[in-house]
């Protein structure tokens, strides 16, 4: 294996210079975003430095408790992030469903992946567990955000269709079937599309990382194929849980629509 080039202080400084040049262009052109670019760059630097040190420590002192705490923080962050990203107000019941499907769906996929597919011993080996969990949780989070937005918007915009279906004796499930199908499309299609374009339109981040760190492209694609399948699984599982449990929160025990009046 070739040795990866270690970036020196000056090399990183050159990368920052690149951003500074960009900020100058933005300023000259009068695009009022130079503050955002600078703040984002600084924030990114601090976050990554912190994560780098934390990971270095955890890798050296691997312990199941560390792994569990880190996955816990990831899941919590993902759930809070979904609440923030969805623009419409979310009912308490739906929030609970979001948290449940997010945690159950991604954890099940992570465990299957760690224990069955890659078969790591010990199971908590942070060098494998943390990056894989991060990818599965992150993608599930994006999918659930899209799904929740579409679910709430759909129930709102098509309220008259849903209520008419109920008037005619439809079950809540039948009445919301169209909306549910659109939620699946919105949430799962991006992952499927990225699978289709993979390797041709772009080289995925994980594969790029492995190649840069000196792994052979063949090893890199093995991992990439496995992780892509894991992503599809984790995304689908969380979204299925979200939808199958989530649509019910828009109806009460009398199968009436809960939100507001017509």
């Amino acid at each position, binding site marked *: 294996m070739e040795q990866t080039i270690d970036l020196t202080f000056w090399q990183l400084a050159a990368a920052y210079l690149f951003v500074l040049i960009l900020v100058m262009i933005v300023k000259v052109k009068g695009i009022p975003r130079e503050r955002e670019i600078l703040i984002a760059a600084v924030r990114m630097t601090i976050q990554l430095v912190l994560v780098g040190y934390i990971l270095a420590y955890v890798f050296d002192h691997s312990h199941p408790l560390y792994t569990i705490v880190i996955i816990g923080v990831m899941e919590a962050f993902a759930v809070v992030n979904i609440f923030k990203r969805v623009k419409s107000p979310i009912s308490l019941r739906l929030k609970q469903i979001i948290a449940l499907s997010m945690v159950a769906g991604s954890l099940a996929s992570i465990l299957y992946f760690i224990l069955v597919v890659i078969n790591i011993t010990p199971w908590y080996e942070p060098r494998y567990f943390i990056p894989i969990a991060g990818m599965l949780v992150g993608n599930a989070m994006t999918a659930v955000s899209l799904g929740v937005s579409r679910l709430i918007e759909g129930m709102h915009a098509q309220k008259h*269709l849903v209520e*008419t279906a*109920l*008037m*005619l*004796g439809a*079950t809540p499930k039948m009445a919301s079937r169209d909306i549910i199908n659109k939620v699946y499309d919105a949430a799962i299609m991006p992952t499927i599309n990225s699978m289709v374009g993979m390797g041709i339109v772009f080289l995925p981040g994980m594969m790029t990382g492995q190649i840069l760190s000196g792994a052979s492209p063949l090893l890199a694609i093995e991992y990439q194929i496995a992780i892509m399948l894991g992503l599809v699984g984790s995304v689908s599982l969380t979204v299925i849980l979200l939808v199958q449990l989530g649509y019910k929160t828009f109806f*009460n025990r009398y*199968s*009436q629509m809960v939100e507001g009046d017509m």
Partner: protein
Amino acid sequence: MFVLDNVRYKNILDVRHLVLPDKKINCILGESGSGKTTLLRLLNNLAACDSGSILWHEQSLYELNPIELRRRVVMLGQNPVIFDGSVRENLFIGLKFADKPCPGDDKLREVLKQVSLHKDLDVEAAQLSGGEKQRLALGRVLLMEPEVLLLDEPSSALDEDTEEILIRSLVRYVKENEITLIMVTHARRIAEEYGEYIVEIEQGRVKSVREKVS
């Protein structure tokens, strides 16, 4: 027969006592905003009252399975809701929702005739006019052969002549099939002419109940 006692719903409806008899043409008359639509929604269990009791066939509405109830007590909302697809698909959709078998085209054409909608079954329903959509939506619920038909202003988008024809055909349908019709209207003329049991509602309260002897 529906029996309502001390039924309150928000500050919209406050009904001390009301009986709506079976196999009659019940007309609920009142100004807009008087709570007529809310009353229908309560009978279909699309909304639950805050207090009081609603009995149907001497059983509390809230003890019945709401889905089963709505398949027998079918409601048609005031604004006709049209689903994607043809006239045929729009007629079928009620039966599909209610898990009932779909009949052949002959039966569908007969229903279209009953609601005096002279359109081909394959026409896209979205292309129909407002009044035609209203009649299509009515045809959809007639096809379900309910025990009780709850209609909210079924002729509001029609001109007077079409309204007359439609209501007359509706009355015939109700009598032939021996079902109960509960129809909300703000047209006094319709209520006086066809109603057998006329309930007048004002500001959420029952103002008067009249039974016409025929």
